[in-house]
């Protein structure tokens, strides 16, 4: 991936993650969690805006953050499949967030030291936020894993369901500003420690779906975009 593809992929990850988290608004299990999920959605959206704006500049075709977010079709999106999966129950949402944050934290940390100043600035800002997301999600994985029988069963199901989608995040790309393959050891260590404390079993690796970075998505993304883009597209050229 060149810098444009890379910024676009990371920006799309953050944007779609924000869109899914935003769906929780007024639906969370606790009022405090409503605040927390909105907060994390806002962080992801903030990172998405910086990355998409920069991707637009790198491309040099005059597309700004909104042109990239609202006027591309699903085949042009480069996000990983993990973030577009439906929210499921709270356990599935926490499994998604936990794996995403356990990847984004070492990613943004490495990005903060990369040669591109703009990407480094995004990394420097976003890594602090990712650390909080990881802490929040890990705590819930532990609470649910080591809570009641029902929560243990649901959390284990969630981890099993989401786990196959993490592999796409680590496909080697030595040409990218940060090679995703180098992030595996940090991710692996975090996941092992948290799942262990949560009394959860790490699933065996078998099926490893992918394709998001090439624009081959699940059936879910098109629906997500239809909702996200509907108003913007209904008024071509309007300012909001």
């Amino acid at each position, binding site marked *: 991936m060149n810098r444009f593809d890379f910024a676009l992929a990371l920006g799309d990850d953050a944007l779609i993650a924000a869109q899914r988290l*935003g769906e929780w608004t007024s*639906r969370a*299990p606790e009022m405090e969690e409503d605040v927390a999920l909105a907060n994390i959605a806002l962080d992801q959206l903030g990172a998405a805006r910086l990355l*998409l704006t920069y991707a637009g500049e790198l491309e040099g075709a005059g597309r700004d953050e909104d042109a990239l977010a609202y006027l591309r079709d699903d085949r042009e999106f480069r996000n990983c499949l993990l973030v577009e999966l439906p929210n499921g129950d709270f356990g599935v949402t926490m499994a998604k967030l936990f794996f995403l944050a356990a990847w984004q934290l070492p990613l943004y940390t490495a990005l903060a030291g990369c040669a591109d100043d703009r990407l480094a600035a995004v990394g420097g800002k976003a890594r602090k936020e990712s650390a909080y997301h990881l802490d929040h999600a890990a705590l819930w994985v532990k*609470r649910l894993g080591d809570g009641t029988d029902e929560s243990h069963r*649901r959390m284990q199901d969630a981890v099993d369901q989401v786990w196959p989608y993490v592999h796409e995040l680590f496909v080697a790309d030595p040409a990218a500003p940060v090679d995703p393959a180098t992030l595996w050891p940090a991710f692996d260590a975090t996941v092992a420690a948290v799942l262990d404390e949560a009394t959860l079993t790490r699933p065996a690796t078998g099926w490893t779906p992918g394709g998001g970075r090439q624009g081959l998505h699940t059936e879910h993304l098109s629906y997500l975009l239809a909702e*996200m883009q509907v*108003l913007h597209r209904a*008024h071509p050229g309007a300012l*909001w």
Partner: protein
Amino acid sequence: MYGNDFAPPEDGPGGGLLGEVEAAEAALREAAARARGGAPAPDEDVEAYFADVIDADQKIEPRDWMPEAYRKTLIRQIAQHAHSEIIGMQPEGNWISRAPSLKRKAILLAKVQDEAGHGLYLYAAAETLGISRDELVELLLDGRQKYSSIFNYPTLTWADVGAIGWLVDGAAIVNQVPLCRCSYGPYARAMIRVCKEESFHQRQGYEILHTLAHGTAAQKAMAQDAVDRWWYPSLAMFGPPDGDSTHSAQSMAWKIKRFSNDELRQRFVDMCVGQADVLGLTIPDPGLRWNDERQAYDYTQPDYAELMRVIKGDGPCNRERMAHRQRAHADGAWVREAAAAYAAKRVQRKEAVAL
């Protein structure tokens, strides 16, 4: 030039409503500095002490004796306010996924998050009166306590998000600014914080409408349609006319309430007229005109029979709003149980280690 920042002079002293919030905050500090010397002496008459505190514009604090009816009135009012913040997340949350730009999406997410935060600290203020948040949530879910009727109207277009900010949050601020001087300390302090954030909310709504009203013809029509639908329900937010208001007189005497429903409604109308002008939108009231004698606008009253129907449960969205809240609560039960079980295990393990 948004929201109350350019409030017309008739909005009173102190540079508009936000200035009044700051003045209330200063008064609160002064009252604290006047220090009543803590609780009354053992031989002092507690009722006389309570009356003195109210008379002196000091604050009643949770430790103080208070009439049971005062406590109940406050619990009801603060809880209804808290419930309104929580239910109010729904109509606006309805547009987060479809916000037409990433900037608007971020602002709306932050706004709805603020509302959850307001709900939380209002519940905390109510808890100082000796009732738990869980009990209050139950009262909401059972339908035994109400929330503001305004949230039983649907948000049909994006412009409704703007109209809610400008009109609904605007009415809320007019209603709440005097509560910053409420005689009950924890409520007054919570309201100061809430009002400051609400003024940002009103500003964002006003800005949305301003952008739409100066956009394409379709956008302007969308904005006008939203104002047409939200104007009268916003006027109704101040409650029934003074003659029919059941709780007002006692609340005024206790300095929980400082102005009557009709006084506040008038103040809101007077504030909105100039703002609508700047927006380039029309307030849907053919009877709206300046009355030189009263130095205020004459206006058409909202349909109070409609207000009563909505309060009783027959508004367009009452059933949906309640079902949504009940479902979120029920769906989250296993998560809350897990969190409690996990916390209990941690305590047990700590005790085991300590032995």
